[in-house]
């Protein structure tokens, strides 16, 4: 009888062992709408429900910080200030300083003070229209990033009318913030997709890289021009096919030229950046679109040789860099 008892214990241990083998991290995913776009966060872990909730509350925080249009957001308060200088949060200081850095690196083509012009275009409206030349010219006089000075947490404006637009940076920064939170929580595998800004934490639980598809410009949503493998990195695209409208046969897209106040005239329709950090990738996708392929490649080479780029021209030609 004693034999059987020992055997029973062995059996129990054996089955527990077998159970343990199949106990891979579980998949938790949540989709929501933030920054006027759909976001999906997928986390592999045990009891990661709480982590997902926390990720969504980071998104909410980021929206309350960087939204230009949401009343009461930190950016809204900065844009509607009564004083020449304001004290900004850590998050705000990081993003503005990155914006000003790329303003210099792009010879002024990437300008976060474009806000007064962006407001005229209002690409998000149900019925967008082309603003009048006069309005555009009036707004343009306030577009000049050299009149904005950031020192630590103190943001100084030379001009009372200057307003900031951080839409080209905020999603990338939010993705980085979510990733560092998940990392801190011990998560080893996650995919953060903020409306097409994709940032991977680690690789998939099975050890393979994540496959990220790149939307084909002007094709049906969901049709891809290429697929890239990503391991612990960021993929971000900017293009003329998102948020655009057509009036009298002319298509107006949302990447504005700070010199003219009109959509930037380019033979590119999309630039995709593969980088480590998503804030860098988010800014660079727009910066490289504005610079054009040759200048963009020079800039990338001077920044970090590990950054890769994919340029898609309006005629459909695809050029890969890196």
């Amino acid at each position, binding site marked *: 009888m004693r*034999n*059987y008892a020992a*055997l029973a214990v062995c*059996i129990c241990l*054996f*089955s527990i062992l*077998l*159970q343990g*083998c*199949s106990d891979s991290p579980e*998949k938790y*995913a949540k*989709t*929501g*709408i933030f920054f*006027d*776009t*759909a976001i*999906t966060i*997928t986390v592999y872990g045990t009891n990661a429900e709480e982590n997902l909730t926390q990720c969504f509350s980071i998104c909410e925080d980021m929206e309350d910080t960087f939204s230009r249009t949401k009343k009461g957001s930190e950016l809204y308060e900065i844009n509607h200030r009564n004083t020449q200088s304001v004290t900004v949060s850590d998050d705000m200081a990081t993003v503005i300083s990155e914006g000003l850095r790329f303003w210099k690196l792009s010879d002024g083509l990437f300008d976060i003070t474009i806000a007064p012009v962006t407001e005229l275009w209002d690409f998000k409206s*149900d*019925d967008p229209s082309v603003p009048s030349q006069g309005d555009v010219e009036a707004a343009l006089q306030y577009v000049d990033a050299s009149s904005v000075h950031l020192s630590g947490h103190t943001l100084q404006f030379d001009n009372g009318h200057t307003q900031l637009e951080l839409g080209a940076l905020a999603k990338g920064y939010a993705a980085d913030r979510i990733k560092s939170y998940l990392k801190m929580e011990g998560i080893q595998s996650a*995919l953060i*997709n903020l409306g*097409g*800004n*994709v940032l991977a934490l680690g690789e*998939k639980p099975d050890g393979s890289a*994540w*496959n*990220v*598809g*790149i*939307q084909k410009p002007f094709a*049906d*949503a*969901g*049709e*891809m021009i290429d*697929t890239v493998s990503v391991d612990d990195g960021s*993929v*971000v*695209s900017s*293009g003329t*096919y*998102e948020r655009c409208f057509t009036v009298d046969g002319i298509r107006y897209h949302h990447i504005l030229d700070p010199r003219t106040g009109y959509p930037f005239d380019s033979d590119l329709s999309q630039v*995709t950046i593969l980088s480590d950090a998503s804030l860098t990738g988010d800014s660079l996708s727009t910066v490289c679109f504005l610079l054009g392929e040759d200048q963009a490649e020079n800039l990338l080479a001077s920044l970090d040789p590990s950054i890769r780029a994919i340029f898609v021209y309006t005629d459909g030609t695809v050029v890969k860099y890196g």
Partner: protein
Amino acid sequence: MNKHDFILIAVVVAVAALIWGYLFFAREDDADSMLVITADGEMYGQYDLSVDREITIGDTNRCVIKDGSVSMKWSDCANQVCVEHMAISQGGETIVCVPNRIILSIESDKGGDVDAVVR
């Protein structure tokens, strides 16, 4: 240990293997894809992708499940991005109507060809 002990061990090991095998493969087989609809942040419903049907979501949107694929058939929104979106069928794919805050997503244990799409 006598003959009976060996038989018992064999039986127990076989049962353990069967249970493990069941758990292992049942998980894989359990990959029936579902359409999950979220409206304004709240779960609206879950639907088996293998059953063709049309689903009206509030009074703003209507989607269709056909041959394992989902598409937004109608939306009263201005931009119609969701209606123009290609049909989705793979785990992780989504169609979103931002103005009406409606999300169609496919949940499946089997991953699709891509894990995400940048645009």
